[in-house]
C-alpha cells in the first residue's frame, strides 16, 4: 500500500510506524516517497490507447485520400491479403500524427536548430506533422503539373507507381519539399502500421501477421521452443484478442 507523505521531516516517525507510505511533495508533483512496501494501486497501470473509430483526426479529407492511395501502392492489395488502405495503414498514420508521435512528445526540441552531419541525426524543427502536411500537398501539386491536372489519388495505378519510383530515385522534384525523404518517411510509417498491433488502427484483422506467420501476443512458447522446423499451429492474437471475439474492433474507420 502507499500513502502520500508530506515533505516535512517530522513526518518521518509517522512514516516508519506505518506499513508503507508514499508522500507527494506538492499537488503538482508525481514524486513519491516509498517505504515499507512496494507501491501498488488497483488499475495503477498505463494501458495502451486504442485508435478510435471515426473521421480523420489529423489529415484533411483530401490528404486522407492521398494517404490511402499512397498506402495502397506501398502495400498493394492481393487476392490473399488486403492492401495498405483496407488494412488501415492511413488511419494508423493519421492517429499517430494526431498523437504523441506527431507532436514530437518526449523529444528534445530546444533551439538552436543547426544543420549537421548525417551521423548527428535529424535537426529539423518541424517534425512529422509538418513533413506530411507539406509533403502530401507537394505530391498533389507535382502530379497536377505532370499528369494533366490530376491529383495523386486520381491517377491510374501504373502512373502512381511511376511517380513514386521517380520520387524514390530523386528524379521527381517537389517544390519546397525533399520528396525522396518524404517518401522514405511515408514508407516507414505505413509499413510500421501494417505490422503493428491492430489496436493502433493498421494491420486490421491482423492481416499482416496472418500473411507472414507471426502469432502475435501469444506470450508463451514453452511448448514450442524445442520443436524445431515445425510450423507453429496457432493463429495470431492481438492485445485485444481476436476480432471475431469482440464487438468493438479498434482501428476500423
Amino acid at each position, binding site marked *: 500500500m502507499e500513502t502520500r507523505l508530506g515533505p516535512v521531516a517530522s513526518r518521518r516517525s509517522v512514516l516508519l510506524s506505518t506499513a508503507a507510505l508514499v508522500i507527494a511533495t506538492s499537488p503538482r508533483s508525481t514524486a513519491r516517497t516509498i*517505504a515499507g512496501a512496494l507501491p501498488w494501486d488497483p488499475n495503477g497501470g498505463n494501458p495502451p490507447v486504442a485508435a478510435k473509430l471515426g473521421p480523420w483526426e489529423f489529415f484533411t479529407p483530401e490528404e486522407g485520400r492521398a494517404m490511402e492511395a499512397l498506402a495502397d501502392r*506501398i*502495400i*498493394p492489395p492481393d487476392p490473399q491479403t488486403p492492401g495498405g488502405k483496407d488494412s488501415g495503414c492511413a488511419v494508423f498514420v493519421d492517429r499517430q500524427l494526431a498523437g504523441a508521435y506527431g507532436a514530437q512528445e518526449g523529444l*528534445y526540441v530546444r533551439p538552436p536548430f543547426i544543420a549537421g552531419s548525417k551521423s*548527428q*541525426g535529424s535537426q529539423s524543427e518541424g517534425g512529422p506533422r509538418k513533413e506530411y502536411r507539406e509533403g502530401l500537398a507537394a505530391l498533389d501539386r507535382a502530379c497536377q503539373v505532370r499528369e494533366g491536372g490530376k491529383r495523386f489519388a486520381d491517377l491510374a495505378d501504373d502512373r502512381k507507381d511511376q511517380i513514386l519510383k521517380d520520387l524514390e530515385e530523386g528524379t521527381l522534384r517537389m517544390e519546397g519539399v525533399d520528396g525522396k525523404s518524404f517518401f522514405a518517411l511515408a514508407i516507414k510509417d505505413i509499413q510500421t502500421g501494417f505490422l503493428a498491433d491492430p489496436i493502433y488502427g493498421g494491420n486490421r484483422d491482423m492481416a499482416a501477421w496472418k500473411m507472414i506467420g507471426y502469432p502475435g501476443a501469444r506470450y508463451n512458447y514453452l511448448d514450442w521452443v524445442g520443436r524445431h522446423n515445425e510450423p507453429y499451429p496457432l493463429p495470431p492474437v492481438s492485445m485485444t484478442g481476436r476480432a471475431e471475439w469482440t464487438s468493438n474492433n479498434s482501428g476500423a474507420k
Partner: protein
Amino acid sequence: MARILPKKDVVIIGLGWTGAVMAQELTDEGLDVIAIERGPWRDAPTDFPPSQMQDELRYRVRHELFLRPDQLTFTFRNKVDQQALPIRNWGAFMPPNGVGGGGVHWNAEMWRFLPSDFVLKTHLTQRYGANFLPADMTIQDWGITYDELEPYYDRFEYLCGTSGTAGNLRGQIMEGGNPFEGARSRDYPTKAQPQPFSHTLFGKAARELGYKPFPQPSGNLSTAYTNPLGLRMGPCTYCGFCEWFGCSNYSKASPQTTILPVLVRKSNFTARDNSEVVKINTDKSGKHATGVTFVDSSGEAWEQPADLVILSAFSVFNAQLMLHSGIGQPYDPATGEGRIGRNFTHQTISSVNGFFDHTKFNFNPFIGSGSIGMCIDEFNGDNFDHGPLGFVGGGYVGQVQTGARPIESALTPSGTPKWGAGWKTAIKDNYLSTVKPGTGVHGSFYAYRDIYLDLDPLYKDRFGRPLMRMTIDIKENEAKQNRFLTDKFAEIIKAMGATSLAKTYRTAPYDSTTYQTTHLNGGVIMGADPKTSAVNRYLQSWDVSNLFVLGASAFPQNAGYNPTLTVGALAYWAADAIRSQYLKNPGPLVDA
C-alpha cells in the same frame, strides 16, 4: 532555495542495478539509506503486464520505457573540431530511466570479462610490444584482477539465477561451455536455456567449422529459481519481448525481481521516485560530500544531507553529475590531463542477416528470449593472435536472436524493392526463414585520447544546465577488428545453409542514429593512478573520499562482452570494501 531534509547515513543517486545492490548491502549493515531516482517506480504488475507488454510500436519504436530526450539528452559530434548537436531522438543507444534502470528493459546477457581484460595494457604490451598499439589509444589496466573480482561475479550470478553452462570450473575446462572464460568457483545456478532452431543450427555449423560453441549465459531463466534473498523467479516463456520491454513473468533478472521486494520492506530504507539529483554538494574544502540536491517533478528543490554518497546513475550520467558538481578535474584531450570524462567508450557492433529457403527452413523466429543464443568466443579479447592482423581487441559472435517482433524483423534480401508488391511478397516469403542475430558481432571498443565527455558550451537541459557533450568516432583499430569478426561470423551463417547474406560492417563515422547497444562506458574510470583515473580500485572518488561512483562509468575501456555482470560484480566489490574497510575508518581506502 532548497528545503533541507533530515540527514541520512547514506544517499544513493539512482535506483537501478548498482543502486539496488548497494542499498541492499548497506541496509544489511544497519545504515539508514535513501535512494533518489530520476524516473518513476515501475514493476511488473502495473507496468509490464502480459496484456500490454507485447507492443512493439509503443515500447520498441516509440521508446516508452526509456529516458525521454526532453528530460535529458546529450550533444554529439565525431571530431573535436566539429560543432556538437543535440541528440533529439535516441538512436545508437537507449538511456534508461526509472526504478530498476536498464535492468528493466535489458536482454540480461550475463558475461564475465576475460582475466586479460583487467590487465589489458600490461598484457598487450607484453605480448605484442608497446609499438603495436595505435599512438592515440589510451587503454589502461583496471587496478583490479579477475581473481579478485571472481567471488563478486559469482554473487551477482547467483543473485540473478543465471542460466548457463560452465566452461572453466576451478581451472578444469568443461565440455559444452566457453573454454576461454576465466576460472569460475562453481557452476551456474541454473542450467542453460533450451535453444530454438536457428540458434541450434548456428551451434552445429560452428562446431563443424572447428569452433567451440556454447549457450550464451542468460538472466532469462531456464527454470524456477529462488535467489539468496529468498525471491523466486519463474521460468522464461520465450515470448520474444525482452530487450526494450519489461518482463511480465518474473523470469528476467532485474532489481524488481531480485532485490527490491526485500529491500523496500526494510525499515531503514526509503526511496524517492520522479526526483532528479542535480548536484552532489561538498563542504568548503571540496573534499567532503555533504549530500545532494534534487528537484522533484513539480520543480521543487530539496537538499538531502548524508554522510556517504553513492553515485549509481547510468554510466554517462555519473560523469555528467560529477562535471555539474565540480568534483574532479575535467579531462582535456589537448593535454591528456584531468579525471572526469576521459576514456569514454561504447561497443563495436555489427551483424549478418541470413536468408534461407522458406520451403525448407521454418525458424519460428518469434520464439526467443533476451539472451538466448549460441556463441563462440574464439575471437574475443586476446583469445587469438593479433600479430598478423594489425589490430587489438575482439568480441564474441553468435546467433543471439531475441525474437522476431515484426516491425523490426520483417526483412527482405538485398535487391528487393522497398515498397510495392515485391516488398509484400518478400516479407511473406522470408519472415519465418530469416536469421536476424541482432548484436551478432559484439566487439570491444578501446579508449582513445580524443574520445571523451565534457560539458557542451551551447545547448542546455530543462534546468538550464549544459548538456553533456559526447565526442566519439570509430577508429581504424575498431573498424579492422569489426571487418575481421563480421567476416568470420558470416562464414558460420553461410554454413548454416543460408541462400543469401546481408552483411553490414561497422565503419566510421560513428552514427548516433542507428542502434548498437546501450553499453556506454567510462568517463569516471577506475585505476591505480590518480593522474589517469577518477576513482580508485574500490570505486571511491580520488577527490571526495565519502563518494563512491558505481557502474560502467568505471570501465577504463570496454571489452567484447555485455557489461552488466561486471557492473554488478563491481558494485558488490565496492559494497564489500565499504562494509569491511570504509565504515571502520572513513577516509581514502587507497593513498593518492
